[in-house]
């Protein structure tokens, strides 16, 4: 089901022996055998079990909180409330924020007085057993006096709306002004305006948040935790009031992240209670805890106004975005920035005005989620492209062709992405791969849709991102990699191993990667923002190639040739083109060892460092580079019931260079599932801010019965800024899926549902509205 098209050989004389092959990942055998310990699988003697007491309303004043009965329960070791805490807050680290809205992300650790969202933690309980902790949870008495809340971001901007946190509900504002929008609209033959709504989304990683903390003999708080970010030791230390070197995060292979384990989850609670009780403490969220325990995807309301000529040239674009930030700031200003930059999509728009705001409400707080704002923008701009095409009577693909941003052209911020822009060929390949249309029959209508995208990889360049890795060769020729990178399931660690063994002339079974320990592995930065391969892959490559250079130099002397003539592969060192002149890698390593030649290297890779975008015009560089591609689908829609079935799902992405094609496909196919659920079935419903769908029987992600086989078309421009020209695929895999499905449904039924998820009910309502056949009235 997969084709890989490689073009433009990366460099002459480079022959990949490990990179680019669908090798069995280093983490796979342990996982399928049930041998891999996740963070929740660690236990310690004398360990306490924790639970979090949560508010059951979304907006209230805490009048009284009585934990005395819980404390009195036999087996309860500690019950902690805000009253017991030092006057500290926890912050989301947002360096480099500028602009006129507030930067303060500080928030209470436990509710002091004001409850701002459903599930906000009131108290922490640690007990000898899980049963006792569960029992104690029921004995906590909380008197909450409801305060009027605000649950809609547009309402939250109105005068007189309840204020979530003083001084106002506007959390962040961002703007792009480029060219002359007025002139552009004047030049347009047709102006198309639509408003699109995107929903909350739950990450729904299968492993709920979990961790185990203890204080060691050096008075260091150790936290074994499921996280995407071991660098959180810093905000944790700040929050509990200890020096940074007194908190150590030890990760584990993560049971799914998707951005949901990017912020702090259980760490602070664990640190507090481990220090207070002096005993190891374990906290595992229940699924219900998890639904309210980490930030969701920001719902957006996006209004697109596009000016276009009759022949399909976009002359102006005006975009207004409002994002629901929920009750606390978290990463909202960043998410908003991504949406802003992505607003026009992979299209050349010279006259552009984008105004984006993130607004506080008493809904669940929102933060990082695969696609990170750029995905919400894509959901809108790709639907808008179809609507524009319809308005001027032009083929949807043709409209796109005429407006695609091309390699070397400036994007929304005026920045020229350094890599190839292959949206066009990805779109053509994906569209063609849909093949013969499935025939419509009776009430079953068939429709097709495409989504094209631009998605950054690598963090915002004004954050001055760096990543470190250490690579060494052991005396027997095996390789060790040390890097703090977290592996959240995409094969991050295995890919680093593949890069290291490529450079060092050995094979993947000969490498061990130690990762994810903030005290002993070099800090590699977060596994977020589709940056792990780009940043840490480059760091590993640098380190491994430095070691290789020393080995090769020594081998060249042994062979009596120039270093450039020496090659390594499959544990042999040899003279290129003269494989008869060779020695085993292990022999070369022994020689180097005996002569004191340095067999290891610590390298740091630095992303481009820039200033912040111009605050008035939004012009400048935001990211290191961008990935481009497309997703196409065919759907069947039952026009009587509104049921949708995705029949075909095809992705075509330029990944730059595959490190492991099987892992790339896995990302793409998983992204297709995330995007399909987002488009069609996943829905977080709230009543006055109270989540009423906190389980997997109510929050419906696609099952094995719902997913088509996803076809992957992988293109390799070898033009990216990652190792060997790689780009990134983690987030891009998901970004274009939902609008492709929305466009296919609209194509099938002839009317658009402007709000996701596109449920059967919304489809039936849209059809009835169009046909004037009445509404879906509820009985009186």
């Amino acid at each position, binding site marked *: 089901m997969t084709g890989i098209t490689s073009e433009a050989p990366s460099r002459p004389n480079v022959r990949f022996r490990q990179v680019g092959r669908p090798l069995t*990942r280093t983490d796979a055998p342990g*996982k399928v055998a049930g*041998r891999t310990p996740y963070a929740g699988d660690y236990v310690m003697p004398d360990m306490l079990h924790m639970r979090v007491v949560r508010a059951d309303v979304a907006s209230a004043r805490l009048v009284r909180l009585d934990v005395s009965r819980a404390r009195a329960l036999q087996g309860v070791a500690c019950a902690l409330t805000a009253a017991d805490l030092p006057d500290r807050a926890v912050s989301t680290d947002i360096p480099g924020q500028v602009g006129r809205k507030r930067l303060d992300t500080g928030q209470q650790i436990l509710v002091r007085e004001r409850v701002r969202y459903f599930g906000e933690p009131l108290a922490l309980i640690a007990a000898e057993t899980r049963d006792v902790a569960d029992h104690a949870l029921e004995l906590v008495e909380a008197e909450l006096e409801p305060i009027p809340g605000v649950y809609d971001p547009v309402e939250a901007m109105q005068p007189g709306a309840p204020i979530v946190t003083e001084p106002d509900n506007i959390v962040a504002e961002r703007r792009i002004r480029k060219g002359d929008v007025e002139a552009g609209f004047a030049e347009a033959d047709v102006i198309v305006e639509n408003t699109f709504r995107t929903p909350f989304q739950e990450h729904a990683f299968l492993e709920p948040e979990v961790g185990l903390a203890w204080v060691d003999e050096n008075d260091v708080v150790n936290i074994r935790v499921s996280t995407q970010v071991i660098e959180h030791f810093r905000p944790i230390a700040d929050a509990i009031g200890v020096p940074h070197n007194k908190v150590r995060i030890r990760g584990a292979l993560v049971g799914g992240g998707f951005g949901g384990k990017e912020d702090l989850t259980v760490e602070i609670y664990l640190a507090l209670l481990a220090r207070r009780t002096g005993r190891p403490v374990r906290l595992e969220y229940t699924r219900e805890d998890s639904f309210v325990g980490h930030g969701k995807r920001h719902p957006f309301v996006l209004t697109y106004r596009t000016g276009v000529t009759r022949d399909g040239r976009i002359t102006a674009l005006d975009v207004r975005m409002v994002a629901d930030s929920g009750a606390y700031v978290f990463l909202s200003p960043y998410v908003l920035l991504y949406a802003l930059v992505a607003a026009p999509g992979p299209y050349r728009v010279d006259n552009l005005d984008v105004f984006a705001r993130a607004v506080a409400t008493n809904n669940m707080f929102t933060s990082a989620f695969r696609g990170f704002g750029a995905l919400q923008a894509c959901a809108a701009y790709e639907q808008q492209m179809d609507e524009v095409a319809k308005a001027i009577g032009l083929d949807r693909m043709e409209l796109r062709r005429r407006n695609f941003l091309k390699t070397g052209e400036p994007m929304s911020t005026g920045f020229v992405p350094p890599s190839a822009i292959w949206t066009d060929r990805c779109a053509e390949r994906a569209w063609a791969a849909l093949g013969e249309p499935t025939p419509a029959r009776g009430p079953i209508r068939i429709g097709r849709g495409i989504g094209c995208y631009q998605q950054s990889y690598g963090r915002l360049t004004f954050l001055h991102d760096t990543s470190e890795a250490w690579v060494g060769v052991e005396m027997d020729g095996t390789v060790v990699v040390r890097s703090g990178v977290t592996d959240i399931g995409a094969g991050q660690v295995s890919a680093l191993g593949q890069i290291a063994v490529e450079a060092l002339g050995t094979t993947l079974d000969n490498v061990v990667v130690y990762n994810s320990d903030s005290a002993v592995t070099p800090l590699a930065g977060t596994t977020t923002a589709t940056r792990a391969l780009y940043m840490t892959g480059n760091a590993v490559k640098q380190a491994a190639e430095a070691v290789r250079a020393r080995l090769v130099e020594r081998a060249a002397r042994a062979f009596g040739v120039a270093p450039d003539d020496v090659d390594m592969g499959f544990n042999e060192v040899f003279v290129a083109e003269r494989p008869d002149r060779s020695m085993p890698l292990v022999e070369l390593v022994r020689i180097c060892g005996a002569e004191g030649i340095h067999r290891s290297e610590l390298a740091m890779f630095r992303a481009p460092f820039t200033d912040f975008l111009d605050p008035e015009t939004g012009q400048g560089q935001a990211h290191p580079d961008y990935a481009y591609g497309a997703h196409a689908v065919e759907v069947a829609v039952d026009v009587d019931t509104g049921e949708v079935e995705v029949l075909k799902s095809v992705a075509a992405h330029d990944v730059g260079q595959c490190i492991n094609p099987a892992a790339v496909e896995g990302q793409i*196919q998983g992204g297709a599932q995330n995007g399909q659920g987002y488009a069609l079935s996943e829905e977080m419903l709230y009543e006055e801010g109270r989540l009423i769908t906190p389980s*997997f029987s109510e929050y419906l992600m696609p099952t094995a019965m719902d997913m088509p086989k996803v076809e992957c078309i992988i293109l390799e421009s070898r033009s990216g800024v990652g190792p060997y020209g790689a780009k990134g695929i983690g987030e891009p895999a998901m970004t274009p899926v939902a609008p492709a499905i929305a466009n296919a449904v609209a194509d099938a039924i002839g009317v658009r549902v402007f709000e996701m998820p596109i449920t059967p009910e919304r489809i039936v309502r849209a059809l009835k509205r169009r046909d004037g056949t009445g509404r879906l009235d509820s009985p009186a």
Partner: protein
Amino acid sequence: MSNERTITLRVNGREERGRFPAHRTLLEALREIGHMEVKCGCEKGDCGACAVLVDGMAVDSCLTLAWTAEGAEITTVRGLGDLESLHPVQQAFADGGAAQCGYCIPGIVIAAKAIIDEHPEPTEDDVRLGLSGNLCRCTGYTKVFEAVSEAAAVIRAGRSGQ
């Protein structure tokens, strides 16, 4: 608690004893006695991460009371094979890239084993229907489907070769 008692669970061919109250689920009990390979994802039968075989039938261990499993043959993913001797289902999942974060995999491998036991030559429908109680957020299932088919073929070939 007065309603605790010591029971013997036969797990992966070995008898293991533990003292549990009546309300302890098989999932909790298995993890308490060290079977960390059985994963907790939802505790209400929605996700399948905790699936084990009880007398050859795949069940959600979170919906099974530990006491009622006494005397039964319980098989977890570790009972199928180990690193040096992976079961064909495990091998196919590893080599086919069907495990990403891997947290759902102990349950999915068990369900896959049960599907192949019942349908040695499973149709696509058999596989989809058999896996509909196992949620995976990473793979989109495509490689899971392929791995189940591959494993079934390997098992069939192994049988016919004997």
